[in-house]
């Protein structure tokens, strides 16, 4: 299992569009993906759950990836949150 804290980058935080991109990336991996903010954990493959985090730009979240492809998944997802710009 890989776990680490990430500061949300990008212009406006983890709103619908970057959340959709995040989920799309997460879905490509078999590992379980979870995100937490202020102690609340949510499924990282659920856009609705991610939106409830209301993670604004500069806020700190914890990313956890657990599964057979966790290393690659963790790195890619972490980078996505840090850049958090909409286009791939």
């Amino acid at each position, binding site marked *: 299992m890989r776990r680490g804290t990430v500061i949300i980058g990008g212009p406006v935080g983890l709103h619908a569009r970057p959340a959709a991109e995040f989920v799309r990336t997460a879905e490509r991996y078999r590992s379980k993906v979870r995100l937490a903010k202020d102690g609340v954990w949510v499924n990282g493959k659920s856009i609705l759950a991610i939106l409830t985090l*209301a993670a604004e730009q500069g806020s700190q979240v914890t990313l956890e990836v657990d599964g057979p492809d966790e290393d690659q998944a963790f790195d890619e997802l972490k980078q996505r949150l840090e850049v958090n710009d909409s286009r791939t």
Partner: protein
Amino acid sequence: MIHVRERLLRGLPVSSGIAVGRAFVYRAYLPRVPEKVLSSDEVEAEVRRFEEAVSSVESELRRLHGQVLRHMGRDFAEFIDVQLALLRDEEVLSRTVAYIRKRLRNAEFAYGAVLQEFVQHGGLVEAPFFVERRLDLGDVSRRVLSQLLGEELPSLHSMGGGSIVVAHDLPPSEAALLDPSKVVGVVLEAGGKTSHTAIMAKAKEVPAVVGVEGLMRRICGGETLLVDGYRGLVVVNPTPDRLSTYKVEVLEQQRRRRSLRALSCEEPITLDGKRVDLSANIEFAFEARVAKDNGARGIGLFRTEYMYLARRRPPTEDEQYETIAEVARMMQPFPVIVRTFDLGGDKIVPGYFESNPFLGWRAIRMCLDNEDFFRTQLRAIVRASALGSVKIMFPMVATLEELRRAKLLVWRVCRELRAKKVTHVQDVEIGVMIETPSAALLADRFAQECSFLSIGSNDLTQYTLAVDRGNKRVATLFDHFHPAVLQLVDRTIQAAHRQGVWVGMCGEFASDPMGILLLLGLGIDEISVTPSLIPEAKNTIRAIHAGLAATVARQALDMGTALEVHRLLRREVHRRFPQLEAALVRPGVKGDSVGR
């Protein structure tokens, strides 16, 4: 034959034009979901039925994505990516399957229950990032439910040609696929100028009126409707008289358009030989072509808000660059003036609310507080300036500090780009919109620190007279020919000329023939109007003697009330500007008995 009584409904005009057609009422209801108890041997088949429904909606959405991409471009297709993510939400899917298995309920019931639980108890209602996506979730769940129920979704595809869509609001997927060959007009109960549907209607040039109170109670479908997208008027069961008045107006409009098109090669020069630059206000990149075809010699105001609003998120630097570059290439060698985001804070920060947004955190103020966001836009504009004559204009500036801070950012952006050798970066000309009384009063100082001024008459009038024209009770007090406004306009023009910079006007003031008369009299250098009004404005300029106009304008400045200014203009036009009087007969001016 008994004629049904005519009724008038009022709303906000968001897309201009006049349309007559049959009302098609669109109700985006959620289908009624029956609850069925399953036996345990039915469960797996039910799970499969659910999964199949989801995957067939997925292919519908992919098809839709392709269509919107082809017809409207990338900006507009993007919301479907979000809808796809909402559809495949792992949490929703797995909870629904679990619900079917554990509670032995049918798929539609389980899905509905899971969504409701999520929205109401999962903290989504309060989630600021969710508010703007409510319509999308509704759109997606409606598709899944009707797929499961085997019901035909209410769809705009099923309606005949010549229809006027009447709805509370349209789901984003329907709005994106509005087919102008079938839908001749749109009337909505909800919404303002920046709603998704309003933007789509405007982009497709379908006349639209939104914010019509009580609309859905008053229209049941099948009525004849007349939509007046100039005045924000919907006429239900128009009388034969009304129809023929409008028919005359539409025909007259078409006839004039044709005859004015002949003017497109002529120069915008007054009778006494004074040249005025005539340019266009645009919002969408494709409008640049219309502007050029109509004879515009530049874009006097390129509004950038739609780049944000169509996507419902901040556009990236490259996206903005591509759009501005497209306009710059199209208009070459003429200038393109890009106005930086004139957005309210509520558009940037989800859930943000202000009780007095016009005096609040918006436009340049909001941009200066979001430096990264602002720099992204400035970089895009500076990069695009390598392709043609692209200039930057800042909206709603009230203080010199704002201009200085914004200029500093531009300067830093230029320096960075030069250091990176991204592209050949020149010094971009910077201008200020004069739309607050403060900026008009300090016009000399502003003119010393920038390359041009552009008067935004709508806001200048609103701030000078302290009138919100959206407020019905005070809207009649809004008059851009009020002497107080005229004095600020005059002051601004004089100041610009004293400091050796040019000054233009973009705003409704400049699309009114009487306004053009006053502006020429006050010595304006540039006039910028909607692309479709370019020939009209040129015709007006060519019918005016600038020297005589100056005499009239001086008199107008001495008046005490707006009414006196209007009287003066009517009298003087009749006396001294016979050619202009002939040009004044035009739709929108004539048929005023119905509106305003």
